[in-house]
Each structure stands twice: as C-alpha cells, then as structure tokens.
C-alpha cells in the first residue's frame, strides 16, 4: 500500500483536511473516515487541501461525491485547494471545477467561505 495520510486542522469555523500521498481504492477509506468525523462533529465548512497529494484515483474522487449532498444540505460546502497541475488535471477532465470551487491555497479557500 502506498503512503497516504490525512492531517486535520481548524481555521476559525472552517475545517481544513489536508490529504497527502497516494489516494486510491486502498487509502480512500481513511479519507472517508476523516470527512465522516467532520460531518459527525457538525463541521460542514470543509476545505480539502491537496498540498502533498501525488495521485488520486476514481475511488478518491468518489469520496467527495459521497459527502457533498449532506454537507451542502446543511448549509456547508467542500472547497478544494492546493492541487498540483497533474492532480488538478484529473479533477478538470471529469469536470469537477463545475461542481466544486477550487482555490490556490487554503487561505484563499477560507476567504471564499467568509465571502459567501
């Protein structure tokens, strides 16, 4: 199994979930567990920071889709930031930028929440 880790931190009322390494079918459950925890804690404003993420597979993309309805239904959102060009391309080809807001870095992403 490739290396993968999730680092959680809080920026005011926005939860920052930084995923690093390889996100594939084997490691996706870890990412899923983290998002589930945030949802359980009623933290619906989430920024997924992709800094340090080297690879994402369709399983990883699916995790986003699994939570977005519930999160948006509770007045929150998932914003994505910090993607490398290679990783961004994967999101882009699928059309994710039409569904999620992308930012350069977490600061920008948090600002986007405050501006809503």
């Amino acid at each position, binding site marked *: 199994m490739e290396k993968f880790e999730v680092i959680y931190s809080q920026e005011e009322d926005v939860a920052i979930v930084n995923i690093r390494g390889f996100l594939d079918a084997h490691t996706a459950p870890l990412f899923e567990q983290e998002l589930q925890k945030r949802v359980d804690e009623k933290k619906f404003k989430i920024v997924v920071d992709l800094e340090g993420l080297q690879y994402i597979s369709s399983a990883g993309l699916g995790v986003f*889709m699994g939570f977005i309805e519930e999160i948006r239904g509770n007045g929150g959102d998932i914003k994505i930031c910090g993607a490398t060009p290679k990783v961004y391309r994967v999101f882009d*080809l699928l059309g994710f930028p039409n569904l999620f807001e992308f930012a350069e870095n977490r600061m920008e992403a948090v600002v986007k929440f405050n501006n809503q």
Partner: protein
Amino acid sequence: MLKIPLKILYFLLPVLFAIIFIVDILLYYSQLEILFIITFREIIIAVALIILFFVAGKRLHLENLSLRQKLIRLSFLILSNYVLVFILNLFMSPEYTDEFPQHAISLSAVIFSNILGIFVIFTLIPVLFIFRDFIFYRQKRWTNLLFRLFLFFSIVTGISVAVTRQPLNFQMTSQSFYNDLFFAITILLILLLALRNDWLTYLPRKEKMLFFFLGILVYGAILNLFDRVYSPYLTPYSLFLAAFGNIMWLFMVIYGGFTIVKLMFHLPTAKAFDRKIKEVNSLYDLSRILNNELDFRKLTRLITQLIARVLESHSTWLELYDPQEKKLSVISQINLTSTQILTNPFHTLDGFNREILTNKRAILINDVAVLKELRFLLNWKKDARTILAAPLFSNRDQLMGILYATKPHPFGFDVEDVSLLEGFANQAAIALENTELLKESIERERLQQELKIARDVQLKLLPQTIPAIVNHQIDCFSLTASEVGGDYYDFIQFADDKPGVIIGDVSGKGTSAAFYMAEFKGVIQTLARTHQDPVKMLSQANKIFYRNIERKTFISSIVGKINPESGEIQIVRAGHTPAIYCKNGNAAPQILEPAGLGIGLDNGRVFDKVLSPQLIKMQPGDMLLLYTDGLTEARNASGEEFGEERVCNLAHHCSRMSVLEVREKIMKEILRFVGDTLLHDDLTILLVKYDGPETEKTKTKI
C-alpha cells in the same frame, strides 16, 4: 454344534437330576456298589454340567451388566452356598464316611448331597461365566485358547478323578499320576488366566476402594468354600463334580488373590491416576470441541468454559493481545465482575505478564498474599489467592493472548494443573488461529469468485466484431487489468442511422463496476436508437444514472457520432480523457477536450449546462484516437506513468499507417513500457481513420 432346541434341554436337566436322585435312594437302601451304576451316575452328572454350560452360554447376557453388578452377583452366588448349607443343616444332620471317597451313611446325607450337588452346579456355572467375562475384558491373542484349554483340562481332570477315585492332592503315586498331571496342567492354565484382570486398571478411585474392601470380605467367603461346602458334601454326590468344584475353587482363590493384591497396589496412586485420565480425556475433548467451533467469539467462550471445568478454577478469563495498541483485553470470562474487567491490572505487557512472555511458559502464584509486589491484586480481586496463567502463541511465535485461572484459597493449583493449562493454551492458540485463517481463506475464495464473475461479464459486454463503416477504418483493443476495472467500448447506431463509437469507464473496480458497465451498455444502446443528438443522448443517460448508481460512483464517457460520407465526427466528452486527433501530414496531434461533466455526478442541472459538443471535419488520412485513462496511467517498474505525451507521440506520423498498424504499434509500445509490472487498470483504445470518399472495407472480426 448339536442344534438341540433349548426347550428340550430345560426339560432334560431336571429329568437327569431326578434320575440321579432316584438312583441314589435305591443305592442307599440296597447297599449295592455296582461299578456300572457309579460310572453311569458320573457320566450323567458330567453331561448335566456340560448341558448347563451351553444353556447358560446362550441365556446369560452378562454384557449388559456393569462391573459392580457382576461382582454383586458373584458375591451372591458364593454366599448362597453358605446359606443353603446352613439351612439344610438346620433340618438335617447328614453323616458320611471318613475316607476318600466319602459315602453317605444316612438318608439325610443322600438328600443333602443331592440338593447341594444340584445347587453347586447351578451356582458354579454362572460364576464361571462371570470370571470368563473378567478374563475376556481385554481379549488378547491367547485368551480364547487358554480358556478353552482350561475348560478342557478341568473336565479331563474331573474324569480322571472319577475314574481313579483318588483325590486331588498331588500324592505323586503311580495311581494318582494322571490326576496329578492333569491337575498340574489345569493349575498352570489358571495361573496364566489369573493375570487377566485389566478390567480393574481404569476403574475410578472410588470403585477401586469399594471393590478392594468388599473384595476382601468376599474373598474370605471364597477361601472357606472348599472346606465348608465342597469338600464334605460334594464328594459323596459325584467325584467329577467334586473335582470340578475343587478346580473352580482354586481358580477363584488364585484369580481373586491376584486381583485383590493388584487392587491394593493400585490404591495409593488411584487418585493421581484418575486425575491423569481426566486430564487426557479433557485434552482430547478440548481439541475435538475446539476444532469443531469455527466462530471466533464462541470459541473464546468455549475455551474459558472448558478450562474452568477441568481445572475447577473459581475464576477463569482469556485476554487477547492487540499488537497495534500493545495491550491485552478480556474477551471472555467466568466470574469476573464488570468493575474487575474495567480495572483489569493484567492489560499491559509488564509486571506479572512480562515473566510469562519472556519465558513463554505458564506461571503459578501459590499465594498472592505472601508476595509483596503482588499483594495489591487482592484489592482488585479478593478471591484470587492462587493465580495460574499461560500464554497463547501463534504458529509464527507471536503473542495471541493469555489465559488466567484463579482460586480463592492459596495452593489451589498444583504442578499438574500448570502443565495442563499450558497444554490447553497451546491447543486454544491453534484453534483460534485456525478460525482466523479459515475466515481469511474463505474471504480470498469469495473475492476470487467475484473477480471471475466480473471478468466474465466484462468479456460478454464488449463487442465481438468491428462493424464496417463506409470510408472509414476502425480498430480497437482492450487489456484487462489484474484487478477488474470498468472499461467499456461499443459501436452504436443513432436514430438517423448514423454510426457512432463510444468508450466508457466506470469508477471503481470489481463486480459492481462490471455490473454498472452492463447497465450502461444497455442504456446507451437503447437511447442511441431514439436520439440523433449525442448531447441529448448523454444528457438522458446522466439523468438515468444519477438516480440509479451510488453517490460515490460515476461513469466517464466519450462519444463520436460519425458521418460516413463526409468524414465529419461530432465528439461529446462526458468527463472522459480527451480524444487525440492526428491530421494527415507532419502536424502534431491535437488534443480534443470539449467541456463536459462525468455521468452520475449531478442531476442534470450542471451536466446539461456544461456538456458541449465539438465537430471535427476529418480529411482523408486523418485519424481519431479514443482511449481510457488506463493507457495514460499505465506504470512501469520505476513507477513512471506512460502519460499523454507518449500517446501523442505515438499517434504522430500515423497517417501513412492503417489502423491495424497503428493499433499494433501502440500495443507493442505500451507492453514494452510496462514490462513485467502488472496493469492496475483496464486499458482501452479505439481508432477511427477516414480514408476519404469512395473506399470500402469488409467487416473485420476481432
């Protein structure tokens, strides 16, 4: 054997005895001593004895009796002789001559001896059979032969005594030669048979004691039998019977003597012996029961129950080790309160447990109160004065857990219990590991089956032939990965009869991906027939799938609708990898990436807004390459990806080649790149080349 029905024999016996009695009365009154009659009597009595032997053999069913019951019957049979003699003596005072062989002097003596003689025959035969049972308890090679020889020589000795009219006392004269010889042989046989008392070895201790003490009493009765019953009263009745009685008495004395002595030697070790038997049975039960229980949880409960039963411990519990947390926790217990479980002091690997783990042996604390460093345990659990614990190690020598057993008083367990618990712990570890292995094995088996089904579905989904499209060349290939992916390609026909090509990729792997692909194929094939516009077709497909697939799953797809006459192709890309368009000539290939969202991500609101078609007008020699991300993401041994660039480079300069040649080139290149590394995702490419107007190719089979 003579097949004389039993009924006749039943009738015959009393008749024979009646004849003897009448003859005796007549002889008494007539004072005659005719040799013929004497011989006749002996023969009749011998015959009666043998008849009764065979009748008893058929009618006595001793197998159903327990040992105790047999011994009781034996005692009864022997004592009844005394009772009879006593009773008869109350009413009669028989008188006999002194010299051997004795004769009856009074009428009462004749009657007395007749009654006693018949009685002895009827008691000795069952006694013989009971002893036979004891001897045959553990039948060996020679047992049957020895017993038959014994019977034979008993009879022969009896005959010899009846003929020679000499007693059996080893006179060593020429007259008594045959008596002495046969008697000696019979005694030898008795000695050999007397060693066959294996039935007493495995008796429980209580029974051994009972039989010993009662046996001594009965033995006393047996010893006196000869002098009090047989010798005075049998000889006048029949020499044959007297000899037989003598032999049987000796047999009882010798066999009984051996048995009592053996019992006596068994008594001191009987308790330990019993325990060992119990242990062995328990271990056997344990491994049998353990290996039958395949459920992990039930097994842990079973382990504590069995241990508690055999060790007779007050509290018993099993702790399992979690290598990740580096802690032990109670998984099954008997007599631990919930507070005790919560405050369990044995949940770490140090202290008491460390010693167990270092030596990999069980340890026994005889009295917790005496040891300073362990006294605190009494605060935790007052009734754990004696503590016994043994480790469970897996096959690979990794700690699985520890078994604990306690008793409320000190010195509650002994050395035997320690080795027993260790043996149990080993068995338990094996059984626990087996349930884990079995589970894993079943799981693996199940996954393999799933994969096989998924692959079969996949193969059936893909088109078996490539259709012929006017003015165009089509070729394709698909490589399935080691883990089943969700690649799909197909050839469709739109409502305006224009042909189309489609490639799809379901997210995820395994059977679910394969089944979604099957659904996708069905939906697309159906929708194509009722649509001319590929954009509307995919829009419909998206609405259908958004409702029908899991949130986490989506399908990327690219469709090309072909106008065979003009060479125009309309490309619609729903989140898929871009198409590569190589123009005839030296220009670099173009990447076609019209806007589009993956199918199943949105209910249509965004999907319909984003999806945009792109129209390309192909010139003769131009080629379109559609592929899935399995191609660009294929990795070699160093983890490097094939990448978009390499694909483009391969597509370059393709105008002079046929689709077949291009396909083979790409295939060769990708296989060379990947080398021995296994593909982790399905890989599909589809090539469409426009030859220009007015060319035709025949159908090609894949």
